């Protein structure tokens, strides 16, 4: 069976981002079709599709859609376009190359669930994406696809383009809602603040990722079953992966979900094309900077949520970062930890203090001022952020950002002990720091 391009079909269409180009290639047919269906039928197709959320957590979208408490109005749709996870590069292209597909996906969700207004939150730094989405929305309003009485029906929904302003944590859905309310993007506690029940302005809110919603038009056009037939249940359909780092052919690829392997993506000619300069693989991050790292022995795992979870990491946001044998693991580890330290929102103590502490210790090691006891200290601080340092992670923090800083350290500190040793120098008895 040849795998259709579901979300990236128009990336090669020169004017695919315009209304004319979109309509010419079948755009807005799903909306017209849906308006002939009942909202419940539309929802049912999405459930049948078993579409897993593409933002990171991988929760089934159709199920999430069912969590709105009955009888509580209004309900909102918030589109998470705050793509910032290091290694992740897919939503931005979708915003730039096929904004109408996303808009149509939003409208289908609003129709299915009775969502009264949609906020399309685009990361602030994506200026070009904002321009493309704004232009697409302006066209879509003009053509009657969005706004009051959509296509002459009684369906009326505004889609409002909203910009972020630079804060990774806002990609976390409750922080995204805080940000959309004009606040500091600090996550809320779940429970009780599950957005489907208590979201934007305290009202039921569906928060979906750009890629997730971009799948919906295809699902409505072709049926949920056709989508479910692709991939390996529950990882159905296709997924878009960005392969970056030390590969010959870095790129963004739409592949069948659940069956394609890491080896296919990293080594395959049509994808990553193998390690650069004929080198060897040292490590790779399978699902964005938050994910524990994988190594050679993980290459043949399929890109399937359950499989990867069981192997101790995650597919996350579809970001594979490849490191070859030349990589300084300690510096790479420090780089990722530094990211989480800088992006910590500062709300809860373990993350605010812990991530920056970890970063400072690693920096000290790199600067040649490390102490042997620092390795145990690193792990103990990690343990105080993410007790047990297990996967899936436990946390003393409010949200998963803190434990994300633990992932790179836990991944490499033992496996590459020799590289840490090289920075620490000979074991020394002086300057010992007591470790509890």
């Amino acid at each position, binding site marked *: 069976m040849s795998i259709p391009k579901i979300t990236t079909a128009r990336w090669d269409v020169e004017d695919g981002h315009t209304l004319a180009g979109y309509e010419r290639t079948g755009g807005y047919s799903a909306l017209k079709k849906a308006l002939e269906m009942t909202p419940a039928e539309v929802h049912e197709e999405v459930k049948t599709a078993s579409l897993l959320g593409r933002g990171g957590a991988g929760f089934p979208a159709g199920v999430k859609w069912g969590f709105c408490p009955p009888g509580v109005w209004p309900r909102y749709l918030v589109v998470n376009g705050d793509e910032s996870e290091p290694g992740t590069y897919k939503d931005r292209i979708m915003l730039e190359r096929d904004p109408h597909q996303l808009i149509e996906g939003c409208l289908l969700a609003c129709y299915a669930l009775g969502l009264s207004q949609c906020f399309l939150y685009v990361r602030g730094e994506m200026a070009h994406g904002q321009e493309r989405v704004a232009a697409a929305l302006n066209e879509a309003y003009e053509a009657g696809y969005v706004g009051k009485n959509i296509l002459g029906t009684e369906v009326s929904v505004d889609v409002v383009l909203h910009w972020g302003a630079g804060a990774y944590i806002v990609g976390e859905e409750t922080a995204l809602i805080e940000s959309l309310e004009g606040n*500091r993007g600090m996550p809320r506690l779940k429970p009780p603040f599950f957005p489907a029940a208590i979201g934007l302005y305290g009202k039921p809110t569906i928060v979906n990722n750009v890629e997730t919603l971009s799948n919906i038009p295809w699902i409505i056009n072709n049926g949920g079953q056709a989508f479910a037939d692709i991939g390996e249940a529950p990882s159905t359909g296709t997924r878009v992966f960005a392969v970056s780092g030390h590969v010959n052919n870095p790129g963004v690829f739409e592949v069948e979900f659940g069956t394609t392997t890491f080896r296919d993506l990293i080594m395959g000619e049509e994808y990553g094309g193998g390690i650069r300069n004929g080198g060897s693989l040292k490590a790779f991050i399978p699902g964005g900077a938050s994910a524990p790292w994988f190594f050679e022995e993980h290459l043949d795992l399929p890109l399937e949520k359950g499989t990867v979870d069981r192997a101790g990491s995650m597919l996350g946001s579809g970001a594979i970062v490849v490191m070859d044998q030349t990589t300084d693991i300690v510096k790479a580890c420090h780089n990722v930890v530094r990211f989480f330290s800088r992006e910590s929102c500062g709300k809860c*103590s*373990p993350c605010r*203090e812990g991530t920056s*502490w970890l970063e400072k210790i690693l920096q000290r090691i790199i600067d040649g001022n490390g102490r042997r006891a620092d390795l145990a200290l690193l792990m103990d601080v990690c343990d105080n952020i993410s*007790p047990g340092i297990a996967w899936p992670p436990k*946390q003393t*923090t409010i949200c998963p950002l803190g434990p994300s800083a633990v992932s790179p350290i836990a991944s490499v500190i033992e496996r590459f002990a020799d590289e840490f040793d090289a920075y620490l120098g000979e074991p020394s008895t002086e300057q010992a720091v007591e470790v509890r």
Partner: protein
Amino acid sequence: MSDDMVTFNVDGNEVSAPAGKLVIEACEDAGVYIPRFCHHERMNPVGMCRMCIVEVDTGRGPALQPSCMLTVSDGMIVDTQSDVTKKAQDGVLEFLLVNHPLDCPVCDKGGECPLQDQTMAYGPGESRFVEEKRHYEKPIPVNDNVYLDRERCILCDRCTRFADEVVGDPLIHFMDRGNQTQVNTFPDEPFASYFSGNVVQICPVGALTAKPYRFKARPWDLAEVDSTYPNAMGDRINVQSSRDQVLRFQGVDSDAVNWGWLADKERFSFEALQSDNRIGSPLMRGGGLNKADADGDELVAASWSQALGSAAKAIADTTPDKVGFVGGARLSNEAQYAWTKLAKGLVGTDNVDAQLGDELPPHALLGLPRATVAEACQPGGVIVLIGCDPKETLGTLYIRLRHAVVEDGAKLIEITPTDTGLTNVASASLRARPGEAGTVARALLAETVSGHIGGVDEDALATARDLLGSGPVTVVLGRGSLSESVDSVLEAADAFLDVDGVRFLQAIGRGNTMGALDMGMSPGLLPGRTSLAAGQDAFSDLWPQLPNSDGMNTAAMLEAGAAGNLDVLVLLGADPINDALDPAVAAKALATVPTVIAVDLFVNDSVSKAHVVFPAAAFTESSGSHTNLEGRITAIRQKVTPPGTARSDLVIAAELARRLGHDLGLETPSDVWEELGPRSAVHGDVSSAAIEADVDGVLITATGRVAFAPPDQAVSREPVNAYALRLVTARRMFDNGTMVQQSPHLAGFAGQASLRVNPYDFNRVGVADGEEVRVSAPKGSVNVAARVDPGVPKGIVVLDYNRSGADARVLLDPGATSIDIRLESKGGKA
């Protein structure tokens, strides 16, 4: 066990708790204290510090959960002692300490610091953090009284939550992000909140300190006692002293009253009580150093014997109808009873008035069905605010009302002439023109009305009317402006009496006014909410000289004094020159009455005219009780000794009685309740022991026998004159009141009086913001700086009352329904 209780297990013990209770609180109730920094029982949980994280098993295996965010459920297993819990909590504590400075020895919080306590109890002996700590400029002022040390701050969000959620003044806020997060104000916009001192009290570290207390004492040197602040709310306080000096007031969490909060006006007023200006010995007219001379120009120190003798002689030498007693709202209930007994029972005069004619009359305070604060604030209730602005005059009532609206779904309808501190949370704001609150209230309660009524349009009335049916109605009734007749407020109250189950909460200003009325300190009243006539039988055995007819109120006594018809005037903590509505009459009375006797803490303008002055003990210096605006009696407890030879008000009354040849029969506060209880229809359950027993005190619920007397007929309305502006006079939290002015850290807030004007009228008159204007009313005129205020409706101006620079009283006309003024700029434009 009732349905709304659940059973859970904490550390191996089965306990029950109300469903919906937070785990951290349910465990505490069960005797298991979980450490915490960000959690505060009077604010919404945020789960930020993570200190209270514990292992909780709800059937899916134990998991670490913040116990401040999780509610108890049936079968829940909480383990606060497990290895996992302990490791997580120790880790959090270490995280909080990595950037916390080691300056405990010079920190005000040292000794009462939760972070220090927790570290001493469970913390590591040494720091594993060898990196550079965060550095900030050491304490920066966030306002005139509160310093912020950002290095000590653990970012628990208590102060910022308080500012935003509790008092609606989000002027301090988290700034920056992540490890650089700090609390701060906007540049050059200080934390100008009436309630700023509370953040010092709730700060779990020494990040926020109060200037009036900084470096004054260490906690282990402080002795403390729970007491009552004698303001109208009767805020519960903890009085803390060292070496016989009061150094701090802290709020006490009373469910019924202030929930632990205090306004700065109360919190920082302890300084007044320690002031060098306190009177420490009796004073008499003198001709020089310690030389008593009735015709002397100045007040000189005298002995108690001289002073008492002189006062008693003046009273004994005249007839009872020529003796008057003004004031008494500062006094404890027991002292009020003693002075009432002395005046009405022994001297035999009914010329006794604790009020100064500037608040609701006694029948409106005693004769309306009264609500408690809790009833007014009940979830889902409807609060109708008439005439006053609690944020300015009753700080903690404002906090309670705001909480009811913001957190508990109560609806607020305002019938006020201008915006109030609660306007931004009100469901409906009816801007009744001065003098027309009654008209608006009647229109609101009518089935239908059309057109504009009293400045309010029919749509606004209809919107508000829809809200009225949504829950039980409480009217918060106050006399906010003295430039309109009290009749319009009374008319409004009368209109609301038709609403089923309506209750009233009277927003009074002077501290123990309710106690004074309950103790009979008003013409025509006897203790126990009864009239002079009706109470004769109950009191005649112990009160031999009971007068037969009603006496004069304050205004009448001052008129009589000014006309030479009064021989003795006793001022019980009253300052008529500054507080009576007609300052000229007051001044003349004090100059004319042959013997003025004052009982006070300070020599104010009126006391300086007295012939005999008795130094009184303040509420930190003598014990007794206080009655708040609900009728709740709570304990006032002595903490320090009075200055010099000052004595309690009760003892002064007893001593004066003795000099008059009587035994007052009252030596201690409990003597009062033993005497009053059997004689009062409403105080039967009150005893000193009962008052002492409960932090929430004893609530007098019986209504007594004083009937509300609405105006005979609809209050006449003055036609609107398009060329004039209608005057509102309004009290602000900080004014020229004695306690504010005698507290160095508060006095500066009183500032100069200003006139607030709508931008439209402002432009019409053609003056610049801050420019001095001339305000002319039929009775007089004043010059005052004008300020733009969009919260003031067109056609209305608001003049600060009792502030320096412009005495609003020269414009007042007690008989007028409302007062129209003209405004002129210095340039003479109209």
